[in-house]
């Protein structure tokens, strides 16, 4: 009896520092977010007024909120699947052993994901530059001249931003998948080869099902990543422009937070939080049945 109490006490003692930090830096701010969203709060310490759900009511009438919601949804829809598919494809390709210098390619593909987001945003601002950018020069070869700049045209701006985000993220997930594939025993592939399976069949029938656990996890990561990283990309490349056509939920939130509307901004955060959770739960359910253990 004594021993188990001592042991439990010891375990509690070891956990305590982490628990403390966790509570202080994660639990407390989260509770604060939910609390502040119910107040009219300038965020500067002066008299926060309790207004209940008024912030949320105002948000659902705010047309910029819907633009931001639409844009964030657009980014999710256009970057999640392509990023993961590209990552999966290159992971399989580079681990198949049939590509020379695969280490070099792995480094090159992974490189964008370690660059700072501000650097990436500025880099792509110049790639999309209306007169001296790579894209403009490239289109010039075919004699195509765009009337409006890519980042200044409400019909193309979100697509341009989506491409930047795919470019940034694919390498990161590719490396994760490569690690996963490495753990699949070679013998399975050899057996399939002997049975006459083509590379494509091997990919879809062996690699993907066995990686399914990892793929499910990366889906949750990338949902989070899209929402979080869209902030820097939008803020630096377009500042929400033209005329708020590239606002995303986080830039919308930020603009209100610095405009002394902290309560309203926190209400947006609550909504983002709920959306995030719903997306994760839904994607978990949808991808739950196909797991294969080997």
């Amino acid at each position, binding site marked *: 009896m004594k021993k188990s109490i001592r042991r439990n006490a010891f375990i509690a003692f070891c956990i305590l520092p982490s628990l403390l930090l966790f509570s202080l830096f994660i639990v407390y701010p989260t509770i604060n977010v939910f609390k502040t969203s119910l107040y*009219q709060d*300038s*965020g*500067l*310490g*002066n*008299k926060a*007024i309790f207004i209940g759900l008024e912030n949320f009511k*105002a948000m659902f009438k*705010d047309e910029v909120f819907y633009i931001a919601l639409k844009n964030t949804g657009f980014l999710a829809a256009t970057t999640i699947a392509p990023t993961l598919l590209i990552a999966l494809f290159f992971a399989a390709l580079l681990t198949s052993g049939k590509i020379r210098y695969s280490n070099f390619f792995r480094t090159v593909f992974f490189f964008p994901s370690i660059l700072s987001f501000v650097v990436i945003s500025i880099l792509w*601002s110049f790639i*999309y*530059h*209306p*007169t001296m950018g790579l894209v403009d020069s490239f289109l010039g070869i075919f004699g195509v001249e765009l009337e*409006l*700049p*890519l*980042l*200044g*045209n*409400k019909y193309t701006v979100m697509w341009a931003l989506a491409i930047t985000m795919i470019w940034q993220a694919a390498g990161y997930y590719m490396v994760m998948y490569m690690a996963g594939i490495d753990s699949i025993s070679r013998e399975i592939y050899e057996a399939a080869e002997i049975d006459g399976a083509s590379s494509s069949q091997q990919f879809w029938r062996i690699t993907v099902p066995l990686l399914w656990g990892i793929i499910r996890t990366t889906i949750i990561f990338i949902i989070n990543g899209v929402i979080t990283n869209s902030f820097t990309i939008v803020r630096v490349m*377009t*500042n*929400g*422009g*033209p*005329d*708020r056509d590239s606002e995303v939920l986080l830039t919308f939130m930020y*603009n*209100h*937070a*610095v*405009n*002394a*509307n902290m*309560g*309203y901004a926190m209400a947006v955060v609550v909504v983002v939080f709920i959306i995030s959770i719903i997306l994760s739960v839904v994607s978990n359910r949808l991808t739950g049945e196909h797991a294969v253990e080997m």
Partner: protein
Amino acid sequence: MRSKIARIIALVCMLTLVVSLFAGCSSKKEQPSSEDTNTTGDTEQVDKEKPDEQAEKESDTKEFENKELDIAIFQGAYGREFWDALAEKFMEKYPGTKINITANPKLGDMIKPKVVAGNLPDFIYLNVDDPSGVIKGLIKDNALMELTDVFNSKALDKDALIKDLILPGFLDTVFCTPYGDGKIYGAPYNYGVMGLWYNKNYFDKKGYKPPKTWDEFFALNESAKKDGRALFTYQGIYPGYLEEIMIPALYSAGGQEAVDAFLGYGEGFWSSDAAKKTLEVFKKIATTDNALMKGTVALNHTQAQTEFMQGKAMFCVNGSWFEGEMQDAPREEGFEFGFAGVPAFNEGDPVIALVGIEQMYIPAKAKNPELAKEFLKFVYTDEGIRLNGEKAKAVLAVKGAVDAVKEYITPSAYNCYKAVESGMHPVVGSFKPVASGSKINISDEVYKPFSSIMNRQMTVEEYAEKMEKVYKQVRDELAAQGN
């Protein structure tokens, strides 16, 4: 043998890592250059022993109960050297006082938690439009100390009231009297002059004259086209820069009345003649061939300004800081900064320039307001003016300051300021604060749609209609608050 060496190397590496962790604990020495302080802020204790000679001279300066002053300085293009130097001089003159300076490029974000905790500095130099929104919030929350008494008092080094030293009209602007009730809450610091810029060298060579009216401006489009450049560009993703045209043009079209209606959310403003005339200018820029430089809407400020300096556009809007800001930027052969102000509508009317004022504040909950006010008065002494020019390369909003600091500022900046002094009419203005708790960010609402206008995806009529609705909402919110 091999593994022993490997273990020693591993141990050394680990020790290096551990020791380097403690590098962050070293106390920071005072670094006068402004490039260093871009991560953490320094709270400096600039404490000085007074030399004995000074003690006898300064017996006529006031004695203060609380001798410690906390000042917070936004460390932007003007750096922090001015404040360090001024504080030193102040502590010499007022023996026994101690000034603690917190200076940071991200001052707004830095002092926000202090503000929230109720631990405000005694004196703040930070503009109302700082992205952190700290000053905007303090104004909305009525958390600033009234400074009218400071300006009604005698200057420290001459026989005049401080308010008479300030350039005319500045103290009446919304920067200084945010609530429109005549009470001063913001003290003017530096001022900048804004308007259209052109390449003086290019104009002289080609024999072009800077436009005095909008008709002359658009007439230059023909010449621009022949020379292979667009007429105009601006800082695309930051359409707020267009206020440098908007406000002066409104002034030219409808006088101070129109400007006040614009900045004060006047009813029916957007269907007024002044508004219509002004919006016509933007419509013309958007719809006339060659008027707007290609790709403008997507460019950030550095890109647009560089394109202008490389001769891709004839005119660009910006302020007196232009030359200093772009000193390392590439430019076309022989480029010279020329300031043209903003053209008038009627032949014979003066050209106009938008003037912006930087601001200093004292929070209502400052712990040492007495000393803070004395320090504020000290800023406006001749010494302060000169130091500001020397260290910050800037011009205080005080009469005669421009010539006092001529040697310290760029030639183009000097010309800007002199232009205002010699005929170019200065217009000052900033939006009146919206109701506290309002979700409307008025400068976003007014200027962001210009991207759509320039893209020809919105007509100026649609814009005016939209703005009329926004203005009504602002008025309603202010009325509900009792304003």
